[in-house]
């Protein structure tokens, strides 16, 4: 479980996060949604320790990140898996080397054991024939799957995904969404996904946090988002006719 309390962060005098508190639950896919510029990415990067909040606390299962020693912070980071928006695979390494990287860095496993684990996770993300290819030789969807494999290979406790299906075709996007949800349940990890894709909200959103202008404007479950009368959420989520109709159909039921 990740608990954040009154997180504030500004850049160049402009307050981006204006005091956000919430809880991301273990074993669930926690989604952060909101318009561009609402503070989603800054919040995610603050959770990852890439940005340091000016005030507030981030607790990883009771461990307050800002109170940890540098070594403890690095130790905690080894428990984190991250899927970046652009996949962030290492260009000079093959798919297999990319996935094996966290194991080589943080375990004392021998080559055979690392190979076994890499094969297992690549199979888990349905990529069995790309071991020796470079990231530049595979498609965007495959790169995302490699990124997921790399993120889960060291059995993380926390999985963060920044726009995991941006730039993907609808079929691949659904496949990636479902893969993340399955992995979250399978490994019982705390997953936080930053997205503005409403398909993802409908498909895998178990807990949803809606940000507006750096503030928590709403939070709830996928079912609750259909019934909410919060105008900001309604304007954002049901901006397309398709989702308006989906909502109407749901409410009729």
């Amino acid at each position, binding site marked *: 479980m990740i608990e954040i309390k009154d997180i504030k962060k500004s850049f160049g005098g402009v307050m981006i996060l204006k005091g956000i508190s919430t809880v991301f639950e273990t074993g669930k896919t926690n989604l952060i949604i909101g318009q561009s510029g609402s503070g989603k990415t800054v919040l995610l990067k603050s959770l990852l320790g890439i940005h340091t909040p000016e005030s507030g606390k981030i607790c990883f299962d009771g461990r307050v990140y800002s109170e940890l020693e540098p070594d403890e912070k690095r130790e905690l980071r080894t428990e984190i898996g*991250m899927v970046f928006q652009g996949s962030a695979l290492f260009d000079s390494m093959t798919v297999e080397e990319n996935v094996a990287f966290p194991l080589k860095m943080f375990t004392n496993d021998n080559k055979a054991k690392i190979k076994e684990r890499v094969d297992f996770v690549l199979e888990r993300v349905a990529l069995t024939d790309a071991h020796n290819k470079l990231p530049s030789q595979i498609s965007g969807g495959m790169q995302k799957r490699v990124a997921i494999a790399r993120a889960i290979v060291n059995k993380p406790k926390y999985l963060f995904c920044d726009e995991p299906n941006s730039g993907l075709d609808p079929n691949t996007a659904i496949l990636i969404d479902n893969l993340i949800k399955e992995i979250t349940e399978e490994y019982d990890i705390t997953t936080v996904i930053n997205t503005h894709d409403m398909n993802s909200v409908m498909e895998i959103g178990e807990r949803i946090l809606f940000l507006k202008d750096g503030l928590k404007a709403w939070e709830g479950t996928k079912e609750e988002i259909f019934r909410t009368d919060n105008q900001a959420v309604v304007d954002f989520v049901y901006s397309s006719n398709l989702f308006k109709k989906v909502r109407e159909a749901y409410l009729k039921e």
Partner: protein
Amino acid sequence: MLIRYITQIGRYCLMLREIFIKQTKWSVMKKLIFKEIDDLIIDSLGIVAFISFFVGGVVAIQTALNLTNPLIPKYLIGFATRQSVILEFAPTFISVIMAGKMGSFITSSIGTMRVTEQIDALEVMGVNSLNYLVFPKIIALLLYPFVIGISMFLGILGGWMAGVYGGFTSSAEFINGAQMDFIPFHIVYAFLKTLIFAMLLATIPSFHGYYMKGGALEVGKASTVSFVWTSVSIILFNYILTQLLLGS
């Protein structure tokens, strides 16, 4: 402006400290060092050899053409070539050239990693990205004096060939001049300079790549800025070291 420069220098010093804490596992580091030796040292040998040979030749020809007084002995061609190549051309000017070749490679490769969030990926995993990216370059560049040694040899060889086959001097005279009044400390001085320049070549371009912000265009700009600052630092340190080691 001044405050900005001081801030950058402070940031650079903090980066140097960060490089040496929280070391990457040796089994991983070993491979990175060999890769950097290949990228930075081996890949530079061709261009260094080419430039050194021909510039050595030009130094010999220019010296010969300027010795118009028949009272000045021809062996000075060998002497001047040796002194120019060992004291300045090989350690300093090859380093300035390498600031362009190695420096832009280092800045653009690290800068691209920054732009594509690969450095963020390393940090999020708990890897000390500065140690992972810069430390192997520093270790690889400990072999840089080897490159400069080759440059010295080929520079003098180029001078000998241009001098002898160009008809400016005889082989015996050139070799006599090249051996005359040889001060072994000049070699020590040249290699000490080279080691300092190697440290600058590894760290200044890394600094500009690591802390760059923006996209592909900024990677190009960072490479240019990195070349300028690495060259300026090499020239400044060259002056300071020459004053300290030979001036007193």
